[in-house]
């Protein structure tokens, strides 16, 4: 019987000689955050959205896995939104950014969703998580959208591409009011953020924390489990 491998060496383990970061491909970032979100207790369909959002953010120049991890650490305390026209009011808890984001994309084109006029969503935690979904909404509406909070605003064109912008020196974890508004005629950006940078270097600690969540969806080995998985005979023939 082969000894079981250390599973942490099977997914996205670092090189070993450079320990500060590990460079993941976008598909690895997607898969890691998908599994981590499921491991953190989300439904499979929402976990798929989390993986997709992590890859989208990384491709757009953000630290996607770090942003997803920050949200997952708080996810249990966050609320789903109650969409209504013009303003999505918060109640006892801050809004979950993934459920808010998914709803923003899902409601695009409906009276409660982004499109006509400005839409205000109160107290969204980890608001960067909503960016990919607003981009999707822009694509679905075939309409440029702006999204902003505090001193931060980005434009997403009708193809869902983001304009270049200066990132404020904050981690954007705290809950904040976000505003989404149509931009019928956004200035054509010289270089879109998508073309500018892809960030796939993941801090070792972030990767380890996400991997620990991802491992929650795996099943420990058993003799029965091993027995069914391979060939019935010997491989040395």
């Amino acid at each position, binding site marked *: 019987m*082969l000894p*079981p*491998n250390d*599973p942490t*060496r*099977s*997914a*996205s*383990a670092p*090189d070993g000689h450079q320990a500060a970061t*590990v*460079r*993941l*491909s*976008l*598909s*690895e970032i997607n898969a890691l955050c998908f599994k981590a979100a499921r491991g953190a207790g*989300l*439904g*499979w*369909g*929402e976990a*798929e959205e989390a993986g*997709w959002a992590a890859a989208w953010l990384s491709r757009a120049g953000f630290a996607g896995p770090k942003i997803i991890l920050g949200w997952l650490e708080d996810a249990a305390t966050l609320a*789903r*939104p109650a*969409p209504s026209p013009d303003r999505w009011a918060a109640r006892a808890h801050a809004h979950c950014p993934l*459920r808010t984001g*998914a*709803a923003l*994309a*899902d*409601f*695009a*084109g*409906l009276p409660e*969703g982004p499109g006509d006029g400005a839409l205000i969503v109160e107290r969204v935690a980890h608001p960067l998580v909503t960016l990919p979904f607003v981009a*999707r909404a822009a*694509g*679905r509406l075939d309409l440029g959208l702006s999204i902003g909070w505090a001193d931060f605003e980005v434009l997403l064109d009708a193809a869902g591409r983001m304009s270049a912008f200066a990132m404020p020196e904050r981690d954007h974890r705290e809950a904040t009011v976000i505003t989404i508004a149509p931009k019928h005629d956004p200035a054509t950006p010289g270089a879109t953020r998508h073309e500018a940078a892809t960030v796939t270097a993941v801090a070792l600690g972030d990767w380890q924390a996400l991997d620990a969540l991802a*491992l*929650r*969806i*795996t*099943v*420990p*080995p*058993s003799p*029965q*489990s*091993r027995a*069914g*998985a*391979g*060939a*019935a*005979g010997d*491989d*040395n*023939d």
Partner: protein
Amino acid sequence: MTCESRNPMPQAAAFRRSPAQVMRLDRMGCSHPTRLSFLRQLLRRVEAEGWAFDRPVWDMDARGVGRAVYRMRTPGGSLSLVAFGHDLPADQRSDRVIATAWDATFALFDGTPDAADLDRLAANVPLQEAGRVTPRELSLSRANRSVRLFNHVVERLATGRQPDETMLRETGYLMRTTAVYGSGKFGAADRAMIAGRPALSAPFQAEMLSVWLTRAFTTDLVEHLARARGGDRAVRLRPDLRRGLGVGNSTGLGMAPFLVRHPVLLNNWMMAREEALARVRAQETADAATLAGFHTALAAAVQNATDWQSAHPIQQTKLGDLQGGLARLEKFVATEWDTAAPHPWDTLWRWAQAHLPMEAQEALLAAMLEPHGDLIDGLGACMQADEEAHFGIDGTMPVSDLRAILQEHYDWAIHTDYSDPAHCARFWYISEEKLEPRLGERLKEDGANRELPLDTGRQAAALWHALRNEADDTPVARLLLAHPEHRLITRRAQIAARHPFAEIRDNLIAADMLPIDLLRCKLAFFGATRFDPRSDRWVRISLFQDAPYPDDLHREDAP
């Protein structure tokens, strides 16, 4: 399908098979490779574009330990297979994904690797999943020797003799790959990074190229070891024997979830193949050259069915069906098929549907496509997928439409009682051991609380039941806000509505589900032959058997 608007043969639509017929596991489990298979697409491109081959590095010792580089110069730049040979003790040789050492390991490098690249790869590629590669690498793979045949061939060549032909035919390969990773795995280039390059835009082209070059490595290695052992007495492998060798592949459940997790891609593969069949059936006449090509293909299918061996009872039954069915097909073609009557291919197909077992029907499909390259090869360009473009959910869709989709595309699923143990006997999961996908028995094993969402039929039924309480005009966005647990199947259903071949129309957690049917379908699209199950969820196959080698093409002395 993305190519629909450019379809030059709309009249073929009347000849298409329905997804309800095609997307059943028993039929998918009878799939045969066709000229649209991915390795055939690769070989056609290599030939058409005149890719030139060389082997700039061969640094192997007498035990086969060392490194080699196999390079193809393509119009879009060079692609190089970097191969590492290892000295593997027999007790470490396992084809399972949980193995940690192999006879040889490989990476497909984008360009020509320099010494620093080779050193970097030497430090990582032999570790496979435990190493890291970079976006310069397009695939990562490994192979084990087929020990008995490998040693036999080396011994014979070393003493100036050719290997036993029967032994060669029986096994069919010197090494078998046990995993070929591409598309961003372990740090390699993401699919999106290479999808725009013509040489790599069709599915799995990097992986197929890697395996094709691996085949050349395997025959080079036996000749090298024979020379090391026999010196001047050693001979090279006779070209016809060499050509009959492919590369084996040993694979298990890891491949099965892929088809479920990539519905748009599966649709595009199936749709291209089905459109190809429909185009052939829609032909009003058959000319002599095409008929001759068909007869050649049919004879090859008969020979293949004769050579194809398996010890597995399920496969033996299927091989019996195939051999018997092909014999009847040959007789019909020779004595009754009126090739001068209108729509002769459709006539042949309809006869086959009425008289042949499924195995032979699907073999006929491949043979019918074979002489129609001009008509169908362009469909190969429709087999890739921009999956992200289809990922978003249309939240404005009213529940009545979603209900209609379930009735049209999930009729096979929504009326099943999934509390019946026979209909929910299995569960798919990821093992802690190297994250290997596995299949468990729900009532006998732990782990069902960590089940993967491959229970597509059961999820569709759950959505169907949830929709009973919803008003027709409720938007899907509202439904998913209240019921996020239906998000995954709602996405699938919306995809299936636009991609009719996206969903396997069978219960993937049923007691009688055969995982090898999923494997056979996917492997046939790769171009695999000699499908040989070693259990209901583990299989060996051969790739590139009887195909040319890189050094067969574009040699200076070639005609």
